[in-house]
């Protein structure tokens, strides 16, 4: 099994590709496909990736640092909170078949994700194996289970 930092990094790439596929569907006015792809992306990132980070990875990093909520995890949690609103707004733009509105949100979301992911990959993920007693095995399993469930949808 890959290490937890590799698994999380690969998940960023998988999610980026899903969002890109959604953007292509919007450009081609395939609104139903776009809605499905956005929902697949949203579930993957919110119910999979962010859930594992917020419930398992961030607490382990905070315990390692030893001062409760760390400014890095505070910022990352805030990023998640902001993104959830944008995902809802993107879904509404697709529902309204408003490509201009969708593209405005997409540009902002992709910028947020690029910066957010880079920070996680540079400052958080490299410390996870040391921060977790099982070296991230349970979190890795949770990520694999989540992706397995999606595969059966």
């Amino acid at each position, binding site marked *: 099994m890959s290490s937890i930092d590799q698994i999380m990094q690969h998940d960023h790439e998988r999610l980026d590709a899903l969002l890109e596929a959604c953007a292509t569907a919007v450009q081609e006015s395939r609104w139903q496909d776009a809605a499905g792809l956005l929902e697949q992306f949203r579930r993957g990132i919110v119910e999979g990736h962010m859930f594992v980070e917020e419930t398992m990875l961030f607490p382990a990093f905070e315990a390692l640092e030893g001062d409760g909520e760390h400014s890095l995890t505070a910022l990352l949690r805030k990023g998640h909170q*902001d993104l959830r*609103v944008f995902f809802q707004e993107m879904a509404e733009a697709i529902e309204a078949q408003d490509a201009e509105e969708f593209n405005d*949100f997409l540009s*902002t979301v992709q910028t947020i994700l690029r910066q957010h992911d880079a920070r996680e990959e540079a400052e958080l993920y490299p410390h996870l194996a040391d921060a977790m007693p099982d070296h991230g095995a349970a979190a890795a399993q949770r990520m694999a289970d989540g992706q397995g469930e999606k595969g059966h949808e």
Partner: protein
Amino acid sequence: MSEFQGCQLPEDLHYDLDYVWARPEEDGTFTIGVTDPAQTMSGRLQKARIKKVGTHLEAGRHVATLESGKWAGGVPVPFAGAVIARNDALLENPHLINIDPYGDAWIARVRPDDPATALERLHTGPDAVAALQAWIKRYDVQCMRCSD
């Protein structure tokens, strides 16, 4: 005017205790902008998009999105309402927000659907300033103002 870690925090404004300040106007509308610590966290802003006049927004939806080289984010409205004015100068020069976040760089004016409850999610005075100081510490912000 309170100041904390270089961040200016006017006590007479109302805050969502995150990025946003709001000022009630005499005509029942609210002027909305972003705080000094928020503009510092964002870095030198390079792009601003603001919803068109007439757009209706639910509480928590973004009236504007802002981007710098290192940051991007939204400006949520603290109550449901309609955009009745926007600061078009920011579309041309978003960096104004880094210079005068509480003055010339206001973002939009919004007429709340329900003026009686518009302030419910906002905080003002010393309690708001204390909560914003905690926000500044949480995100480890040291404010700097651009002069041009």
